[in-house]
C-alpha cells in the first residue's frame, strides 16, 4: 500500500477547456495533466493569454473543464453543479486575488468571518477563529478597520487570513503582489513561504519569474499546454 502522503490531493487528468465564440472554437487549455501533493509550493507561470488564469479557475473550482477530470481528494468535481462547486470552494480552496477583493464597508474581522458564515460556523466560534487568524498575520490592531483604512499590504494580509481561516486544502494566489510595491510584495511572498513551511499547499499564479523562483516547482503554460 502506498503511503497516504503520496496520494495527490488534487489531480488534473487530460483537462481541456474550449470556448465557443460564434462559429469558432477556441481551445484555451489542451490536455493538462497535473498532480498536486500536500505541502507542495507550485508556481504557474505564463504570459497573458496563455491559459494560466483558466487553469487557476479550474483548480479553484470556479470553472469546470469541457473535457478531462479534476479530482479533489478522490472525488471528481469536473461535473458538479454550481452549488456543489461553491461548497468545495468554501471547504477546500482559499483564494488570494491581485486586487484583494475585500468587501467595502465591512471590517477586517467581518471579511475574514465571511467564508465561515457560508460554512455555517456559529457566531462565537467564528469570531474567535477569525480573530486568531488575523492576529497570526500581525493585524491585531486592525481588526475593526475598514478596507479603505488599511494599506495595500494590510489588505492583502486580511485577504490571506480570509483564505486561510477555513483551513483549506489548497491556497490559491493569483498575482498576489501585482498591486503592491516591491518591498510589500516581498513581505507577502515571505508569508506564502512561511505558510508552505508550516505545511500548507500553495499554488501561485504569476507572470513574474522572480516571484515564481520562490516556489519548489514551476509549471510553465504556453498556448494552453504545459511546457
Amino acid at each position, binding site marked *: 500500500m502506498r503511503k497516504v502522503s503520496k496520494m495527490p490531493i488534487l489531480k488534473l487528468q487530460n483537462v481541456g477547456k474550449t470556448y465557443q465564440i460564434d462559429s469558432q472554437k477556441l481551445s484555451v487549455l489542451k490536455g493538462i495533466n497535473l498532480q498536486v501533493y500536500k505541502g507542495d509550493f507550485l508556481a504557474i507561470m505564463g504570459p497573458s493569454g496563455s491559459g494560466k488564469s483558466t487553469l487557476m479557475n479550474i483548480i479553484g473550482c470556479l470553472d469546470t473543464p469541457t473535457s478531462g477530470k479534476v479530482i479533489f481528494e478522490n472525488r471528481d468535481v469536473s461535473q458538479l453543479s454550481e452549488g456543489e462547486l461553491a461548497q468545495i470552494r468554501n471547504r477546500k480552496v482559499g483564494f488570494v486575488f491581485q486586487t484583494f477583493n475585500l*468587501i467595502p464597508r465591512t471590517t477586517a474581522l467581518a471579511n475574514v468571518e465571511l467564508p465561515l458564515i457560508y460554512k455555517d460556523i*456559529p457566531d462565537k466560534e467564528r469570531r474567535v477563529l477569525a480573530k486568531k487568524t488575523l492576529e497570526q498575520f500581525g493585524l491585531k490592531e486592525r481588526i475593526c478597520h475598514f478596507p479603505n483604512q488599511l494599506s495595500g499590504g494590510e489588505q492583502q494580509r486580511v485577504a490571506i487570513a480570509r483564505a486561510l481561516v477555513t483551513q483549506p486544502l489548497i491556497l490559491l494566489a493569483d498575482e498576489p503582489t501585482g498591486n503592491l510595491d516591491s518591498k510589500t510584495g516581498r513581505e507577502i511572498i515571505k508569508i506564502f513561504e512561511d505558510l508552505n513551511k508550516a505545511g500548507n499547499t500553495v499554488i501561485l499564479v504569476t507572470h513574474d519569474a522572480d516571484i515564481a523562483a520562490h516556489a519548489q516547482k514551476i509549471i510553465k503554460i504556453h498556448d494552453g499546454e504545459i511546457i
Partner: protein
Amino acid sequence: MEKLFETLKLALITLRANKLRSLLTMLGIIIGVSSVILLISIGSGLKTYITGQLQDLGSNSLYVVPGNLELQPGGGGSGGTPGAGAAILKFTLAHYRELTQKGTTLKAIMGYSEHNGTVSYGGRSKTMQVAGVGYQYPEVRNQYPELGTFFNASQQEAAKKVIVLGKTVADDLFPNENPVGKKITLSDNKFTVLGVLEEKGAFGAVDMDNQVFIPFTTAMSTFDVEKIMSFWIEAKENVPINEAKEEVRQILLRTLKKDDFSVLDTASVVSVISQILGVLTIALSGIAAISLIVGGIGIMNIMLVSVTERTREIGLRKAVGATPKIIMIQFLIESMVISVAGGIIGIILGATGALAMRVFIPTGVSWWSVLLAFSVSVIIGVVFGVLPAARAARLNPIQALRYE
C-alpha cells in the same frame, strides 16, 4: 440558520449605508400602504357612523321616494343602481291626504323636502339647509323645542309662513335676544319664528342644528315646487314594518305606477348605503394600491442598480463559498427589508392619519387592513425582488471578480 441571520444583518447594514436611497425607494410603498389603510378606515368609519345614525332614526320609519330604486337588502345583483331612476316628482297633497286618511297602520305621515336658503334678521344673514317637514317632526325625531313651539297641523294645512330654528341658527341670528315671535326673512318672504329646537349635535361634519324647519306645504310655495319631494312615514309601534310598507304601497298604487315611487325602510337604506360605501372603499383603495405597484417597480430598479454596483462583491462571495441560492436569498431579503420597512412606516402613518380623522368621523383601523397591508408589502418585496436577486445569483463568479 446562521446564514439567514447574517444575511438579514447584512441587508440592514447595506440599507443603512445608503440611507437616502433606501428611504426614497421605500416612499412608494409608504404612500401606497398608508393611503390604503387610511381609505379603508375612513370607508368603514363612514359606514359605521351613517348606519348608526340611520338606525338611530328608528326601525319604524318608512321613506317614500320618487323613482324605482328596486332596493334589495343584502345586495342582489339584479337590483339596478340605486338612484339611477332619479326621478320625476309625482307626489301631491292628494297623496298626502290619502295616506293620512286611509293608512290604518301608520302613526305619522310627513312630507319631507330639503332646500338651500338664506335667512336674515336685523342685518345678519346666514345660508343653511331649509327642511320642509310635517308638524309631527319633534315626536318622530325625538327633538323638541327648547323655546316656543313647533308648528301645528292647522298651520301646516294653511301653509303659514312660520319657521322653527335650529340651535346654531338661533345663536347666530339672535345672539342677545329671544327669537320667538320675531319676523325673519327667508327667500324674500317674511316668516314668524315659532320656536327653537333643542340641540341635536353634529352628523359627521354636518351640524344638524344649522338648519331651519318650515311646514312642507309652505316649502312648496316658498321654493316654488308643485310636488312633494318625499314622504317620511312613521308606522305604529305594534305593526310589522313590512305590513306598513305594503299598505303605503297599495295606497299609492291607486294613482301612481309601480315605477313612480319606492318605499324604503331604515334597514334597506342602511344596506344600500353600506353597499355603496363598500364599493367606493374598495375602488379607492384599489387606486391607492397602484402606487404599491409603482413602489415595487422602484424597489426592483434600485435592486438592479445594487446588483450591478456590487458585482465584484457577489463574485467574491461566490469564490469563498456562497451558493447561488444563498446569493438569491441575500438579495431577496434586502428587497423585502425595504418593502416591509416601507410597509410598517406606511401602516404607522396611515393609522395615525385614520385616528386623526376621528375629529370628523369615527374611523377605526381594523386589524385585517393592517394585516393586508403588511402581507402586501412582503409580497411586493418578494415579487419585485426576484428578478434582481436571480440576476445576482446567476452571475458568473469569474467574470464578476473581474468586473470593473
